[in-house]
């Protein structure tokens, strides 16, 4: 029987290892596509919706997984495969609740650093003001003409998680790099 695969194939296939690194950069783009992504759809009447506990438009961290309310009655769970599996296993799935593994459907990138807002402003028409899109905000929008689900996810610096259809992954990664060029964007 044929050998099992050893590594997850990211949609970002370009090798950036020879790309010059900008020492004074204040923005970094990282490919996080191998992150486990579980989509939960559950009506407001279900127990699962209560457990997920975060409304449309915002995200919260539950232990090490990120629970993102990305559409009404729809959540995306991000984390390692073990963590997301454990999270889903703990959900009460009675009633009309769907679970779809989106790990392979979506590319996932992290854009972080002081220049991340300036970079996003060049490719997305949304308002990234702190009052409108604060840390933990979730929004879907066209980014460089590819539809994305976006989570504002600050660590020490402002940052954003962007998920798009896997097939657009390489295109979007390059479009973000192009937009971030004036901020000296680096590949993480």
């Amino acid at each position, binding site marked *: 029987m044929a050998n099992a695969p050893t590594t997850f194939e990211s949609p970002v296939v370009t090798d950036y290892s020879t790309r010059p690194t900008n020492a004074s950069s204040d923005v970094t783009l990282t490919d996080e596509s191998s992150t486990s992504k579980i989509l939960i759809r559950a009506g407001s009447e279900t127990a699962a919706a209560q457990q997920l506990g975060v409304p*449309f*438009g915002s995200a919260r961290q539950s232990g090490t997984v990120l629970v993102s309310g990305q*559409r*009404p009655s729809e959540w995306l769970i991000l984390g390692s495969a073990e963590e997301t599996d454990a999270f889903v296993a703990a959900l009460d799935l009675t009633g009309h609740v769907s679970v779809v593994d989106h790990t392979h459907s979506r590319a996932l990138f992290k854009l972080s650093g002081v220049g991340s807002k300036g970079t996003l402003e060049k490719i997305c*028409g949304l308002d990234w003001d702190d009052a409108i899109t604060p840390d933990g905000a979730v*929004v*879907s*929008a*066209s980014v460089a003409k590819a*539809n994305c689900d976006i989570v504002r996810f600050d660590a020490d610096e402002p940052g954003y998680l962007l998920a798009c259809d896997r097939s657009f992954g390489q295109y979007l990664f390059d479009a973000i790099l192009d937009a971030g060029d004036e901020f000296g964007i680096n590949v993480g």
Partner: protein
Amino acid sequence: MLLVPCPNCGPRNSSDLHYVGEAQARPNPSEATPTEWREYLYMEDNPAGWLRENWYCRSGCRQFFTLERHTGSNEFRNPPMPGNKVGGKA
């Protein structure tokens, strides 16, 4: 660019949405006469004034909803709650 008040997301650029058409009730396909059905398919009131119309928030929440817009001033009123029944025409 027009700002459309998506009842879920909030104000969004109209390019983020898909304009579905005027809100009309779908006739029963087993009982409608050809005239009634084609009236539903092809005819629009197109008033100069308040109009109930269907939108789909394509780039945002992916919900269909009905909004009332003044075709002269582009003012919106009565953003409905999500899940409101709107016509099924596309």
